[in-house]
């Protein structure tokens, strides 16, 4: 099947215009034809009924005085109306009295000799039967067989006219829309082009950062390996300063390795498919907190977790979001003698909000724009360890879920991170 989407915007626009104008014209044409045909049919019938009445009234004397000759003369008047193929007058007792044939050899129609017999009408023929009354007394019956061929010919003619009009209009619409569509399609095409370019540039960048991170690992592994050899094999020959310097090297190597690992995770995020499923948020948060807390079991931490509203999302990714936000909260509360972390949720009509609040060192709102940037750090490494990738990954995950994330804080007064996930409408 050819999909509509396979065509360019220009073609789609022209197609839509042609379809709409063509269909509306067709509809109007069909209605017009039907109305015309029906009223023509009615007019013909009305005319025939009037004619039948006139002929009937004029034939009363012929019937009353049993004069078929004059009745035949009366019927012959019907030749002024070419629609009438044949006509007959039946007497009171139903036997044929007088007939008129326009051209019986042409139509092949013959009236039966009594009124009871069903006439063998030919194609396109219809019969009109009317009683002939004389002073409210039935003196006979008039039967008129008329041809509807003219009607059907008119119908054909009208159909043809409508088709021609339709074709002409569609052609006109085609040429007009062909030249006018550029007003609409040009900017869209430009936009689509830019979007396409951006997408490919983005992909290239992702691939680039992925391969760079990956390639950085090889020399790093060499530095790590050789510094380890140096530390172990040449230890007796190194003085205290030498050993310290090697430890500094090894510390930096480990930090760089972590950095590369996170960068790779960040780059990989864009390639991963989202696997959305209903999530038990409370469980996810509890698990993440338990894991992180076990590393810092000696700290005094009050963890307030209310029952969170469920939401849809990729379990692994959202779990990563909580780990990042919780470790962030734990990290920046480590200077507090009594850390406090609170997690709440609320819902709006369009999204589900999740909030994590801590009583840590906080931040200055004037740097809030730097919070989610890669390698952007508000605190120096001596104070709080970190690579500056965690929040960038967190934001990327939330955005891929169609949500948003923001932070509020004040120096020394704690920070609040809020992320919102769109509500997914579930079939009820």
């Amino acid at each position, binding site marked *: 099947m050819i999909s509509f989407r396979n065509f360019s915007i220009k073609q789609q626009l022209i197609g839509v215009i042609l379809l709409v104008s063509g269909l509306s014209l067709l509809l109007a044409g069909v209605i017009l034809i039907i109305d015309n045909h029906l009223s023509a049919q009615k007019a013909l019938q009305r005319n025939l009924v009037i004619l039948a009445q006139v002929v009937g009234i004029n034939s009363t004397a012929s019937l009353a005085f049993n004069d*078929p000759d004059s009745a035949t003369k009366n019927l012959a008047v019907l030749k002024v109306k070419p629609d009438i193929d044949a006509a007959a007058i039946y007497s009171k007792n139903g036997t*044929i009295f007088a007939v008129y044939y326009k051209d019986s050899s042409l139509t092949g129609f013959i009236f039966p000799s009594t009124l009871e017999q069903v006439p063998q009408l030919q194609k396109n023929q219809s019969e009109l039967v009317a009683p002939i009354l004389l002073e409210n007394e039935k003196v006979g019956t008039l039967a008129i067989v008329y041809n509807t061929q003219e009607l059907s010919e008119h119908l054909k003619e009208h159909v043809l006219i409508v088709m021609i009009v339709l074709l002409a209009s569609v052609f006109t619409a085609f040429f007009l829309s062909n030249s006018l569509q550029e007003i609409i399609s040009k900017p869209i095409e430009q936009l689509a082009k830019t979007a396409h370019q951006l997408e490919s540039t983005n992909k290239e960048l992702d691939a680039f950062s992925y391969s760079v991170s990956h390639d950085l690992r090889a020399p790093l592994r060499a530095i790590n390996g050789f510094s380890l050899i140096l530390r172990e094999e040449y230890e007796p020959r190194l003085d205290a300063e030498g050993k310290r310097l090697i430890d500094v090297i090894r510390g930096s190597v480990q930090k760089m390795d972590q950095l590369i690992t996170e960068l790779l995770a960040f780059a990989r995020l864009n390639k991963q498919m989202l696997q959305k499923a209903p999530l038990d948020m409370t469980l996810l948060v509890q698990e993440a907190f338990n894991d992180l807390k076990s590393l810092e079991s000696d700290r005094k931490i009050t963890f307030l977790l209310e029952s969170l509203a469920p939401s849809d999302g990729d379990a692994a990714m959202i779990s990563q979001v909580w780990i990042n936000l919780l470790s962030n909260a734990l990290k920046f509360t480590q200077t507090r003698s009594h850390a406090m972390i609170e997690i709440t949720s609320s819902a709006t009509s369009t999204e589900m909000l999740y909030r994590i609040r801590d009583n840590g060192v906080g931040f200055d709102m004037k740097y809030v724009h730097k919070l989610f940037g890669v390698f952007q750090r508000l605190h120096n490494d001596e104070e709080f360890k970190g690579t500056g990738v965690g929040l960038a990954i967190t934001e990327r995950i939330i955005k891929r879920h169609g949500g948003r994330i923001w932070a509020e804080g004040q120096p020394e007064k704690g920070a609040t991170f809020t992320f919102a996930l769109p509500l997914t409408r579930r079939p009820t």
Partner: protein
Amino acid sequence: MFYLLIISFFLETIGVVCVQASPLSEYQVKAAFLYNFGKFITWPETVLPASGNQFKLCILGNDPFDNRLTLMMQGKTIQGKPVLVTPMQEIPELNSCHLLFISPSEQGRLAEIFRSLKGSNTLTVGEMPGFLEKGGMIFLYIEDNRVQFNINTNATSGAHLKISSQLINLVKAEGE
């Protein structure tokens, strides 16, 4: 001007049906005509007012209808009036009739009859030779085994009787 209008009658079915062969007798057909003439001829309102009254159908002389006319006209109306079939014998009373059938037995009194009817609005129907020439209005006769008749339109218009154009249209021109 004197018109001789010949109207040929066909009975029941198309084509010529012999009067003798018809299930209807000659006088049954003629009785039906008398009735139908009433539908295509209009009498002046002075003799047939809108309200009341009867349509007086008279038979002068021997009744060729064998007294069946009364039975046939039972319940029927002419000009919207119930039909009163009246046998007549005396000439001076004839002008009260709307339609007068003059029996062949009255052949000898024709001139006297028409003289007494002068100025009246009586439609006269007869079947004796020379009926129209003597002043009669509708003459019934049989020719080619068919009932035919002539109308003397001068006489009918003299009596202020209006003959429907339909009745005239039925008529073939003389010599046809």
